[in-house]
């Protein structure tokens, strides 16, 4: 076994490595290179080594505004998802009936993997001017005119929260499962009210889950495409639809590449920052 140990993993791994290289790593590298090229109206792109695309992005209030709005929306939806996710994850982790628990886990994971198109369709059916919510509101006599929800920032926030919430719940739940109930009981017997117990005992122990869950949700919300495009409407601009437009409508490859990289960089930076923070605070996970 030892003799060919160097050869066997190589042959087992090479197809997978090849596919990932061609299907992702090479394209990503190439995209980075393209982001340093120059756009030309005639031949689409000319070879160059310039930071002008990045300069254009960061020099233009329009693009900066979209980036800022994307980050703000992503942060807001992450915070809401966290606030809603903690009780849900706690409820899920502490359920003692196994059947109810696996049913609830399925009700978390199935929406998580349902895909953004179906979820978007659902919110549009619900929130549209002539959607289900308005039909019910008018039926109940609460409103005479349809309530404008779809194509507003509120609708985007609701839909984004709903999209990332399952990820938050699952991330928190997996950490909570590892925190034995006995710590809560110890705090209670020592005189802590449930709310104090949560703040002083559970929350500090849950921090790693809060960070990994929030990070995941932030990244997903940053890169949301269908939700801002369809639920926010044409005036609601976020980064992902902008990249798509630049590439497929404007055909400005270098600029689209640089914007994709800005998006990626914000994502990567948050990963790095938070993992450094977590390691400093809580040791290697």
């Amino acid at each position, binding site marked *: 076994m030892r003799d060919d140990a160097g050869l066997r993993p190589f042959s087992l791994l090479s197809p*997978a490595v090849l596919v990932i290289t*061609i299907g*992702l790593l090479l394209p990503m590298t190439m995209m980075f290179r393209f982001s340093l090229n120059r756009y030309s109206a005639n031949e689409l792109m000319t070879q160059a080594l310039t930071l002008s695309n990045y300069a254009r992005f960061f020099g233009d209030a329009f693009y900066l505004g979209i980036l800022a709005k994307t980050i703000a929306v992503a942060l807001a939806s992450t915070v809401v998802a966290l606030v809603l996710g903690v009780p849900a994850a706690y409820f899920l982790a502490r359920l003692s009936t196994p059947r109810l628990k696996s049913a609830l886990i399925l009700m978390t*994971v199935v929406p998580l993997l*349902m895909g953004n198109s179906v979820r978007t369709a659902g919110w549009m059916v619900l929130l549209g001017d*002539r959607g289900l919510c308005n039909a019910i509101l*008018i039926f109940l006599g609460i409103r005479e005119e349809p309530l404008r929800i779809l194509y507003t920032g509120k609708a985007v926030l609701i839909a984004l929260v709903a999209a990332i919430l399952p990820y938050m719940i*699952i991330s928190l*739940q997996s950490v909570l499962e590892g925190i034995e109930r006995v710590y809560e009981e110890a705090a209670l017997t020592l005189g802590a009210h449930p709310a104090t117990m949560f703040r002083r005992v559970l929350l500090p122990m849950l921090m790693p889950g809060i960070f990994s869950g929030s990070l995941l949700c932030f990244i997903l919300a940053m890169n949301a495409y269908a939700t801002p495009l369809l639920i926010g409407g044409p005036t609601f601009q976020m980064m992902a639809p902008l*990249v798509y437009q630049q590439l497929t409508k404007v055909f400005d490859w270098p600029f689209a590449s640089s914007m994709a990289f800005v998006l990626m960089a914000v994502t990567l930076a948050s990963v790095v920052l938070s993992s450094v923070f977590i390691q400093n605070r809580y040791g290697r996970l």
Partner: protein
Amino acid sequence: MAARMRALTGRTAFLASVGLAYLLVLAPLIAVFWVSFFRNKIIAFPPQGYTLAWFANAWSLDDFRNGFVLSVEIGIVATIGSLLIGVPAALALARHDFRGREAISAALMSPLIVPGIVAGTAVYMFYIEIETWTDVQLAATLPGLCLAHVVLALPWTVRLVTASLVGVNRLVEEAAMTLGAGPALTLWRVTLPMIRPAIVAGGLFSFVVSFVDLEKSLFLVGPGRTTLPIAIINYLEWSIDPTIAAVATIQILIISAALLLTDRFVKLSRAF
């Protein structure tokens, strides 16, 4: 008494927020499911009756029918592809220690980290570049889409199978060897049967993540050749009606069935 009251109020608030969370998560799915059976074309409440006509209507539209067929095809290819290359990779990662193991493992997991829009942009330009250099068309072709989807599915297979292999007691494999089974026979008769649930789950997960993908596929489909999620999005730009609800319902049913099946092999809570 005051303590009891406070505890009761706290508990009510807690349960209410749990309810709100699940309402948000499930509402869009329940809504499309329900509306897809409404008789009237304009969504009204209460519904004037129920019908299955919208499912027939959806199937009669080329975009949805072709999109469905294409998504199933790509899903199957992604499943087979990710198993064929993912299971050997998992074997190497779980059973061998070699230099660069961590880096390769990270590379194989990278499709999970790179956002769909970013990856789609990169792959789209890469395909066009390849075409200009070699005249091989990948963008807007089935092979091009399939390659992208195998990449999408691969980390799930690798992760599930590796986790399962790590859980398999090596002593069992060594016992088989001492009983005279060679490495190949041990793999075939002992190791693979033991990780079968993870392989099945990996395949089903591959199908699911491929079937529902929107952002990455967006760049790689061609005119008249879209996947079901993209057909849904395109339709939504123009109208919101029971037909689109019926299409979404079909996707809900397929994905739910696949995930329920997966759950029988590997508990879904352990897949993440």
